[in-house]
């Protein structure tokens, strides 16, 4: 029977470092271990004993790319512990902060990480400027990223570890000139986003496997509010989230893994689109029409298309908010330390993110817990790789299998904060 032993020691174009071990016995995949190998930096221990006001900026440092999602999730957890209800204006500014993050972060994944696979290139910068399509995509990528980056800087002060969002409000408001410039940049980038959606709608990669999905579903498509839903119609109350996420220890991984109702599940753009596409911005829905019929989908490669659609939604809604809302100075709301547990839940680019903080009456944090999207996706990734490798055996060369595994992992856009340095695939055949 088919036997081989292969080590792939680098995965690239993802965020963080990961390893993979695949055990094949007599032509059957017996075991897949996908593990996050980034060294732990122990933020849940580091927050113990620190003053609550310092926690959001500390926890933003968990991840460079999802930084502003961690920041807003932690702010929400701390505000709930302190009994603070943010103002409607603050919620709008946070919504815009998330839109800036989604635009630039999804664009990074779709152009720089995933698109070279579609065009048979090693790197996005290898795209040929003399080829009209590749030339256009090169310019599109940096135009979209720059528009998202500009929006983040305008509203939050920075794309990474943003200084303006604080517990109780914002320390700085966007200026009129900047708002106009942001609207102009976002509107100018819209045709590029439509070309991006077309690329991923027509992308030739597919892996269809029935699995479960979970996401925070708001009234209107977004990333901050709503109820946690699964694809079986189940609703999870935020305060009970830990009862629904079953912690699974994978001794080979630095990350915690999770199941829901005893089964693997997927979080991220595909989960959100599957569960809430009807809540997208009206202009987004009108423009995309039948493209949205591709959802719900159990094809993991549609995660990239879902991200591209989310860029368009973020752009359309950001333009509407910036064009119709006025921002006026208001005080940052102060809370009173007390014995309380606060829970924050947001949809980070890669899926549902949970922060829990246990506050002491002296204003210091007793302890806390953080559940990140890539940890939740870890077992689902393993199950997808299992299916992929089994489908490819026995006639596919090992090098091709290794490439296909990397491509699949990139479709999840995992963040091992984050991962990226090494994916080591150890093939063990008996």
């Amino acid at each position, binding site marked *: 029977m088919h036997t081989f032993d292969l080590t792939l020691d*680098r*995965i*690239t*174009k993802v*965020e*963080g470092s990961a390893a993979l071990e695949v055990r094949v016995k007599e032509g059957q995949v017996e075991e897949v271990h996908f593990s996050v190998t*980034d*060294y*732990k*930096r*122990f933020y849940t*221990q*580091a927050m*113990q*004993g620190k003053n609550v006001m310092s926690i959001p900026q*500390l926890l933003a*440092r*968990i*991840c*460079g*790319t999802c*930084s502003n999602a961690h920041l807003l999730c932690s702010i929400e957890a701390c505000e709930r512990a302190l009994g603070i209800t943010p103002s409607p204006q603050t919620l709008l500014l946070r919504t815009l902060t998330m839109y800036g993050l989604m635009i*630039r972060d999804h664009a*990074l994944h779709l152009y*720089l990480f995933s698109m*070279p696979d579609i065009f048979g290139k*090693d*790197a*996005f*910068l*290898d795209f040929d400027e003399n080829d009209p399509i590749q030339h256009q995509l*090169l310019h599109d990528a*940096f135009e979209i*990223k*720059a528009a998202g*980056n500009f929006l983040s800087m305008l509203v939050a002060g*920075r*794309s*990474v*570890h943003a200084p303006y969002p604080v517990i109780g409000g914002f320390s700085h408001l966007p200026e009129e000139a900047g708002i106009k410039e942001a609207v102009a940049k976002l509107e100018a980038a819209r045709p590029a986003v439509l070309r991006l959606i077309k690329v991923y709608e027509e992308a030739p990669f597919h892996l269809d496997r029935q699995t479960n999905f979970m996401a925070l579903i708001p009234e209107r498509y977004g990333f901050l509010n709503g109820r946690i839903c699964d694809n079986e119609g189940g609703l999870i109350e935020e305060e009970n989230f830990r009862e629904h996420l079953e912690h699974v220890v994978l*001794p080979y991984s*630095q990350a915690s893994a999770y199941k829901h109702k005893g089964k693997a599940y997927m979080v991220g753009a595909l989960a959100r689109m599957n569960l809430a596409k009807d809540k997208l911005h009206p202009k987004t829905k009108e423009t995309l029409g039948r493209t949205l019929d591709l959802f719900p989908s159990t094809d993991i490669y549609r995660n990239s298309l879902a991200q591209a659609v989310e860029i368009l939604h973020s752009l359309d809604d950001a333009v509407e908010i910036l064009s119709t809302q006025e921002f006026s100075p208001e005080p940052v709301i102060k809370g009173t330390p007390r014995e309380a547990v606060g829970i924050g839940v947001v949809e980070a680019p890669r899926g549902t993110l949970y922060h829990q903080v246990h506050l002491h009456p002296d204003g210091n944090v007793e302890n806390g817990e953080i559940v990140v999207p890539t940890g939740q996706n870890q077992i689902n990734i393993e199950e997808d790789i299992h299916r992929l490798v089994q489908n490819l055996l026995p006639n596919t060369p090992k090098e091709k299998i290794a490439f296909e595994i*990397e491509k699949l992992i990139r479709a999840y856009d995992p963040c091992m*904060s*984050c991962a*990226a*340095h090494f994916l080591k695939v150890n093939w063990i055949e008996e």
Partner: protein
Amino acid sequence: MAKNLPPKIRVGWFSFSCCEDNTIVMTEVMNDHWQEWKQLFDFRYARVLQSKNVLDEMDIAFVEGAIASEKQAQFLKEIRAHAKKLVAIGACAVVGMPSAQRNFFNENQKRQIDFLLARFAALPKVLKVSEVVPVDVEVGGCPMDPQDFLTKVNALVQELRGGQS
């Protein structure tokens, strides 16, 4: 006949224990400089940008993150051996923090993490880059400041080209 262009500057971008915020800032700086960088840099190693990476002679090695294991320290030494100039990028590389926060844990916090340090063969203390290899240039910040990064990179490019841009 067209004038010969100067050879590209051979660079590597390496991330150790950190949140990779500087990698993200670098990709944002690229929004305005990608065309120039395509002409200027030969990326020998930058796993965030490409799949084919080689560790060979480099003019500049950019290193972000702190050093959390002996394996990381050995790799950093290899990088140093191949690089004319080594630039420490961001707070974790320059001062160790916040990745080195476990160095300052109290006994209770240490007890919570000891088994994980042992399981993954982590160093007893997290190190800043200059505690492992000599550093030529530092770009601090959490994340790094884009303008500071550009100024120092441009100065290095000038120096490596003997004052010729």
